[in-house]
């Protein structure tokens, strides 16, 4: 055994020795404050890529149900690619692949990364990857919802003399969004969980910060448990917010029995 191997072995043994003891004190005093500071990064990733992804999902879904093969085939392939390959590969492909492409580009003899230094930051690549991934998944959900819109409503719009664009904007799309709301809230929770993959491309969101703490302190349990607690709380809160939002958007469709209108009617 060489000296290098010996030191490596003793390092790992030391690390195992330290990591073997779970210290609640270290968790609360050291780990939690740093992880809490990382929550905004996770939320930013979720909100920005959720917004971009869901906006992109609309043209993807519309193209997917279009009769023209020049439109539906690319959309079909896009959805297949996004849903058929692991997100981790997509993130690596975008981060390292685009990095490779950008690395070759030179402007006035300078590297592109030097001209635009923000391109070095992993967060843009993570947002890009999460956005197109969301566009694929949400596009497929929205496609189902667009097809589930009752045909009579579209016909009614036509009878009113609405143009095709107006029918889409006022009848089909709002109705479809309402139909796919439950699936969309599930998707949003999945997106929040997926933001943790950004930690693999040097983004210090909750899990990334946790992994950084592990590297620094050589203690594994506390950072991972702390990150787990934060994700559970975030998912719990997000689910409640989405449920409330869903109920609010469907308020006019609630059955009169369950709404507050009944007791008042009884009083009158």
């Amino acid at each position, binding site marked *: 055994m060489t000296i290098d191997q010996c030191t490596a072995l003793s390092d790992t043994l030391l690390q*195992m020795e330290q*990591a*073997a003891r779970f210290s609640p004190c270290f968790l609360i005093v050291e780990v939690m404050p740093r992880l809490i500071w990382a929550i905004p990064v996770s939320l930013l990733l979720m909100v920005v890529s959720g917004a971009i992804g869901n906006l992109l999902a609309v043209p993807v879904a519309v193209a997917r149900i279009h009769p023209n093969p020049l439109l539906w085939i690319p959309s079909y392939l896009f959805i*297949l*690619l996004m*849903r*058929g*390959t*692991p*997100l*981790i*590969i*997509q993130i*690596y*492909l975008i981060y*390292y*692949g685009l*990095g*490779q*492409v950008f690395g070759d580009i030179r402007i006035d003899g300078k590297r592109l990364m030097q001209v635009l230094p923000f391109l070095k930051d992993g967060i843009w690549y993570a947002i890009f990857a999460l956005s197109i991934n969301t566009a694929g998944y949400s596009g497929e959900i929205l496609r189902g919802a667009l097809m589930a819109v009752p045909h009579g409503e579209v016909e009614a719009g036509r009878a009113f003399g609405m143009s095709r664009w107006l029918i889409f904007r006022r009848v089909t799309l709002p109705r479809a969004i309402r139909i796919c709301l439950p699936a969309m809230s599930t998707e949003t929770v999945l997106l929040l*969980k*997926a*933001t*943790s*993959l950004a*930690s*693999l491309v040097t983004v210090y969101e909750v*899990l990334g910060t*946790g*992994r950084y703490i592990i590297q620094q302190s050589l203690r*594994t*349990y506390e950072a*991972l*448990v702390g*990150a*787990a607690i934060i*994700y*559970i709380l975030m*998912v*719990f809160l997000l689910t409640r917010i989405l449920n409330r939002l869903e109920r609010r958007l469907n308020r006019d469709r609630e059955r009169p029995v369950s709404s507050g209108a009944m007791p008042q009617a009884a009083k009158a």
Partner: protein
Amino acid sequence: MDAEPSLIGLLAWGDKGWGDELARGLALTVQISICSYFVGFLLGLAGAGAKLSQHRWANVAGDLYTTLIRALPELLLILLIYYAGTPALVKLLVFTGMASEDLQISPFAAAVIALGFIYGAYLTDVLRGAIQAIPKGQIEAARAYGMHAPLRFRRIVFPQMIRFAIPGMGNQWLNITKDSALISVIGAFEIAKQANIAASGTKEYLFFYSVAALIFLCLTIVSMIVLTRIEKRANRGVSRA
């Protein structure tokens, strides 16, 4: 290498190219997926049983299991199970005398444990729904015939449960093949890891990650074709409206 190697040449078999490494990666991905799917299926059966059981504590345990797993990112769960779960398991096995002191858990076993544990939770809900879809009258009829619980499960519940569960189980299979790529972070040499090594070795990131994505896409497409066949075959005796 002397000459500028072509990109296709990088996929050659043997020492020069990365074709055999990627093929071995694919084999490992499939192995990990199948093994962890099997573990997940057994855990899912246990979880569904717990959730549908009469005992309150079993219900609570089942709910806790699925809620926690669903709320946590898969990557975090894999790290957590790998760093915290497997040492605890080793300690437990050593303590109960089922293994010797020098027991080492390989990345493969850790991957199977982690993914199996995660997908056990997802399959719990799939299987629970499938069991609930079985008409109650049939189980009562079986009970009236004097069938005991294991026989009832084997002859009445299980065959129908599988038929109802096939679409959900198929989705989870597609997810598990994709999530197996996360195992690369704990050092199992599956497709993502092999692509990682090949890409950083040759600096051809775009090419190797595209190849990895293509391999996963083929795996998904083949799985989808097989799943449609299975579904058709399972429903061959059922009339459709």
